[in-house]
């Protein structure tokens, strides 16, 4: 039954804001089902749909509602009246699929994966039945990612295969290649690093010949594979290459910069990583990317002896509307920072909050990490204080590693890039 996941979610919700947006989402999906089954076929009948769209467009956004989620629900409501537009090349139908995919994407960004998958399955099945292979391929591609996030490997692999076949039929080679990147990411998650590297090498060759706009994405995936296999220098080189390849596309450059910072931090160059993350946190146009950078910055400052930077980043994060996964990570890293700087009660409180949120949202891996953090805090508080501070055993980011010539050069280039950006129009907004 369509909407079952929505009803389950509504039954479990406590927040009235979330209840409202979820209920409106369910309403939009039900309207879609009606429209698809032939209701509102003529203009007079479609009037209630237009009224619904107008009402929704006029409603103000709640303070705690995610703007992307709200806009995507409005988009679904706005395009539904055009489903049956005659003689207009099916743009109403395409618009509805685009809006539903936008809604599913917004739900997944908010970690509402079960709802997102319900919407994606609707689009995947209906669009394929309608012969709209392009939209079905997009839905399958997102399904592949969604199932991987929920650790359903077999469904994820099937979705990627289906996405590839449909994308080829639709002539959307970029989607087909992205399905291959998804398959390679699945292999990395399952530990098949050589398989992933081989698949990405083949995908890169095809991307160079057919879809240059996909090349930075493939190179970044290769960097992640290198980092996962412990080849940190290669990971940094590849990520920097992806950054230079995406030179005309500033929106893509910011997430790549976040990944470069992660690789540099893993390699042992946290100062350059911090500068890069600060730049992204200040200037990236997408809020999701800015918050991601802030959370990584919190981790680095928490595990590096920089209490002032830790407090500054923590304060900035408290002003952001965080999504569940981001909230958990923020509390987890705060717990690590408080413990390092000797504030045991605050550390325990943050770790317990992270554990509770992780359990509530079924992020089991984070639950284990939070429990581990609580255990460490317990051990630290049992130890006798030394020099007025609590004895702490936590992971420290390694400093002062002797860098290879190539990484030194890339680090310098990243520093130059940051300096150039800071001198630009965005430089006014500084940490």
């Amino acid at each position, binding site marked *: 039954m369509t909407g079952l996941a929505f009803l389950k979610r509504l039954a479990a919700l406590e927040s009235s804001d979330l209840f409202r947006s979820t209920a409106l989402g369910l309403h939009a999906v039900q309207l879609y089902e009606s429209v698809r089954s032939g209701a509102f076929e003529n203009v007079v009948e479609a009037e209630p749909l237009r009224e619904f769209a107008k009402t929704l467009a006029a409603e103000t956004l709640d303070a705690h509602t995610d703007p992307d989620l709200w806009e995507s629900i409005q988009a679904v409501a706005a395009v539904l009246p055009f489903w049956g537009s005659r003689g207009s090349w099916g743009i109403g139908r395409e*618009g509805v699929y685009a809006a539903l995919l936008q809604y599913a994407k917004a739900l997944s960004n908010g970690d509402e994966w079960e709802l997102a998958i319900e919407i994606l399955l609707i689009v995947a099945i209906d669009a394929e039945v309608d012969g709209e292979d392009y939209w079905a391929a*997009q839905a399958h591609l997102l399904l592949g990612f969604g199932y991987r996030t929920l650790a359903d490997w077999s469904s994820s692999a099937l979705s990627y295969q289906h996405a590839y076949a449909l994308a080829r039929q639709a002539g959307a080679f970029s989607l087909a290649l992205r399905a291959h990147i998804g398959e390679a990411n699945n292999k990395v998650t399952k530990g098949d690093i050589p398989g992933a590297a081989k698949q990405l090498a083949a995908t890169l060759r095809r991307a160079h010949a057919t879809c240059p706009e996909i090349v930075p994405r493939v190179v970044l995936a290769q960097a992640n594979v290198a980092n996962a296999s412990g080849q940190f220098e290669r990971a940094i080189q590849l990520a920097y290459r992806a950054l230079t390849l995406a030179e005309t596309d500033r929106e893509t450059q910011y997430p790549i910069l976040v990944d470069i910072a992660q690789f540099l931090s893993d390699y042992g160059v946290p100062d350059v990583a911090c500068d890069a993350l600060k730049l992204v946190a200040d200037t990236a146009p997408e809020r999701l990317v800015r918050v991601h950078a802030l959370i990584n910055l919190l981790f680095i400052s928490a595990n590096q002896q920089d209490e002032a930077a830790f407090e500054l980043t923590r304060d900035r994060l408290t002003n952001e509307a965080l999504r569940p996964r981001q909230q958990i990570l923020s509390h987890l890293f705060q717990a690590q920072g408080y413990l390092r700087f000797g504030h045991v009660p605050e550390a325990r409180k943050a770790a317990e909050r992270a554990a509770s949120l992780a359990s509530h949202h079924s992020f089991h891996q984070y639950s284990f990490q939070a429990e581990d953090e609580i255990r460490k805090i317990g051990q630290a508080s049992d130890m006798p204080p030394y020099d007025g501070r609590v004895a702490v055993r936590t992971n420290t980011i390694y400093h002062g590693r002797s860098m290879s010539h190539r990484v030194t050069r890339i680090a310098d280039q990243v520093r130059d890039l940051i300096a150039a950006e800071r001198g630009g129009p965005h430089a006014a907004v500084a940490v």
Partner: protein
Amino acid sequence: MQFLTFVNKTALARVTATATPFGTVVAIADFAELEARMRSHTESCVIVDPALLLVAEAEVFSKVAAELSEPVLAYTSLTLGAMQSAVVLALHAHAQFVYQGTSDERSALARALLAIPGPEFGGALVTALSPWLGRLAPPLREVVIAMLRTGSGALSSPGLASRTGVPRRTMDRSVVSAGFISTRLLIAAAKIVRSYRAVTTTGTSFKRIAAALGYASQRTLDQQYLDLLGAGVVAVRQAPIPLPKAADILVSRIIRSAECRGIVDKCKPDDSPFHDMRKPNLAQQVAHPEMTGRSLGQLAAMGEMVP
């Protein structure tokens, strides 16, 4: 090519990043400027967000675009206002559509920019095909004309059938009874229209053009050009066929020879710039399942006999 771009600031950044390899992007501030620029520039493509047009403005815009035969790419956001104007553009300006906010947005934009048809080719082909297009049922005719003019839309017979809202076999029979050899060749002709500008006026690799237009490989693209225009892509890039001539050659290849004797005569090898121009393989066409279908009239009569 010049891209006259009337979109919001975020979309403009995306267009600029994507369109730079294909031409120059000119940002337009308001509708009056857009109209003036369209009238003063030739060889341009208009990229517009319907959300920035009132319905009345969309009607004026469509009229100007149709008058000047300028290709239109509607880079549309998904709002009530945008969709109202989008329907007008789809109906009257024969716009191609790319939707903002989808996960494949940038690639879709790049593909659409690469496959923007030249302003004259689609029009010339529709004019040349008008006797046969006139025999198609109105909904099918409308979709086929839009497909040939804009070069966008369905890339397969099931996709085209889905857009016309009729079963595939019914559509195939309707197309054949109107005088076309097959739906497959009709779609192939639309793909030629779509790729012709990229092949003749840009230096984009053939592999990339083939991928963007849904061909299985560069060889398939080349073969399609050989079959339908009588010359491979390399030859066409070196010596582009004049558009009215190309339209006539296409007509001679997708219409049954008995139906278009005059045009076939015009496109004899002696008269063509290419001496290796071949006629389609007749044996293959006869064996094609689409050719064995009965006409619509016969089918209706047989249907009535079923108890």
